[in-house]
């Protein structure tokens, strides 16, 4: 079947499965009914497996980690966030996290797929082609997945805060997890994301120092800046200087900035047209 379906086709199927999860949960919520967690888990797992396969085909065709253009970066970030949902959701028993992850995964997957220019060219060895820099990029993008999930749990926190403070119960609000649980998971995700992004920076620097040609001016400094802000937020929250609600707002805004600025990472001067997996020899 891999001859018939391209990697993009598999990624479309994954996006459809994520959208199916989103629609199923939305209908349940409209009917004021708690959706079946096992079905949600199943449909998200199916989407995740299909996406993994699509990214594997793309990676095999590219001969490296599939993070060579905006399309691939968004797909990889979505994949990371979804992977984390399978750890965070069951461990912390956060109701509605599956719903919010489905919203995020469906939206980012479809957006990346419907903008052709994001996948028109692919930079060969975007990060210089070395193992260190590929590792650096994969770590950094995985941390983006963590921060993506943090943005989702932050949205959930703010919705719960709004519902209690403004006395808006019922509907979606009645299924949200407790504020304290969301705050705790936010702190843990923030610590995890900061650690991953922090670890990616020295790995990138190792490569940078040995490869003067690699244009690290924008990407490395941008990543370092993002890491610094996230780390400062973590310290402020752990020392109780920053309130949970402000952390939630900051996490959403910062993730939006980080995603919006992903283009700065694509700075290699030698783009080449995309060859999908089905077109590979």
């Amino acid at each position: 079947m891999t001859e018939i379906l391209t990697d993009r086709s598999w990624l479309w199927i994954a996006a459809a499965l994520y959208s199916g999860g989103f629609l199923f949960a939305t209908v349940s919520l409209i009917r004021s009914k708690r959706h079946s967690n096992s079905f949600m888990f199943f449909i998200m797992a199916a989407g995740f497996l299909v996406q993994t396969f699509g990214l594997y085909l793309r990676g095999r065709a590219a001969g490296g980690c599939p993070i060579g253009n905006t399309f691939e970066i968004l797909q990889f970030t979505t994949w990371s966030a979804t992977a984390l949902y399978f750890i965070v959701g069951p461990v912390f028993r956060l109701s509605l996290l599956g719903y919010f992850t489905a919203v995020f995964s469906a939206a980012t997957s479809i957006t990346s797929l419907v903008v052709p220019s994001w996948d028109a060219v692919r930079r060969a060895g975007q990060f210089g082609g070395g193992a260190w820099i590929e590792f650096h990029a994969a770590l950094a993008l995985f941390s983006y997945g963590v921060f993506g999930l943090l943005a989702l749990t932050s949205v959930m926190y703010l919705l719960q805060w709004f519902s209690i403070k403004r006395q808006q119960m019922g509907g979606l609000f009645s299924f949200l997890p407790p504020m304290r649980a969301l705050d705790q998971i936010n702190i843990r995700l923030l610590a995890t994301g900061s650690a991953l992004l922090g670890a990616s920076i020295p790995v990138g620097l190792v490569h940078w120092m040995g490869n003067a040609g690699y244009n690290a001016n924008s990407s490395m400094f941008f990543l370092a800046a993002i890491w610094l802000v996230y780390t400062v937020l973590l310290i402020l929250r752990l020392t109780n200087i920053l309130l949970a609600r402000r952390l939630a707002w900051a996490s959403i805004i910062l993730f939006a900035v980080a995603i919006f600025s992903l283009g700065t990472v694509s700075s290699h001067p030698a783009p080449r047209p995309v060859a999908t997996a089905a077109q590979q020899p």
Partner: protein
Amino acid sequence: MSHDPTTTERPPVREMDADGSHDAGFFFIGANHHTAPLELREKLALTEKKIPAFQARLAAISGLREVVVLNTCNRVEIYGFAETPAAAARIEEDFCAFQDFPEHVFRDIRQHATGRNAIQHLLEVASGLNSQMLGETEILGQVKDAYADAQARRTTGPVLNRIFQKAFQYAKHVRTNTAITAGQVSIASVAVDLAQKIFGGLDRSRILLVGAGEISKKTAKAFQSRGAGALTVSSRTLERAMALARDLGATALPFEHVAAHLSDYDIVVCSTAAPGAVITRADADAAMRKRRSQPLFFIDLALPRDVEPSVAGIENVFIYNLDDLARIAEKNRAAREGEVARAREILREKSALLWTQISANA
């Protein structure tokens, strides 16, 4: 037994056998809060000591093959399977004689049904549709206890076993597939629900009760029933605070220390009869400075209010007064009411199916 003053009386069960005649087969007979006022239910209620003697009396009725007695604060109902109409009729006479209750009065307040209607009634009772507090879940446990008791006494057989086991299954089905149990409908339970929305598990939350009256006690019990551990009681009269604290297994705090120790608590339940505010904006501001990023939840059940309204403006402070809680309880109750017709329809299908199966096997 739970009782909720915010709920309304529900209409009597429909499709009862109107003529009062007794048929053989599966039947139920009894009285409940729909038909009997409290003063009559008090006289009809079987005390724990009397139940074994009554069960023995039922066992002696010729032609009564199986029987389960459901005895709660709101109902005394006898479910049975009789070979003859006379056996079912004997129960009514024996029950009245046993309770020394006038038979003619009982006839006015009793409910009686046979066959599919009796099954429908049992399903509605087990699902909480027939409860004073619509959709409450305690009744299912009570029905299960009554059935287990009957099993232990060997007064159940193939018919009642099947009907009761299916009743438990269908009650769960209705709760899962309708919103009949959604939301809380008592003030205290709504308050506890809100606290859980903020703090999650209450075992690690510290709760201060300001006021030692009946409302405070009810709310404290609601918190304890959901796992709250650390309770402190304060009252303008220290003796009353200490008495309630003893009753609840809590600690007492002198009233004059409330403001200074406010920051130690996550949840503060106020229900004093004080003429003015007991918790001022300045008190709450000072507490929040000490609590830093930890939220504080005020439940103000007092009239006039114990907590200054401006306290609501403090970041990370949540405040609900009596009206707010009553509004949520009423909304939840209305939502449950809206589900009654759908739940009854589901149970009607189930009772028809079950009755068909039982009739076929009889």
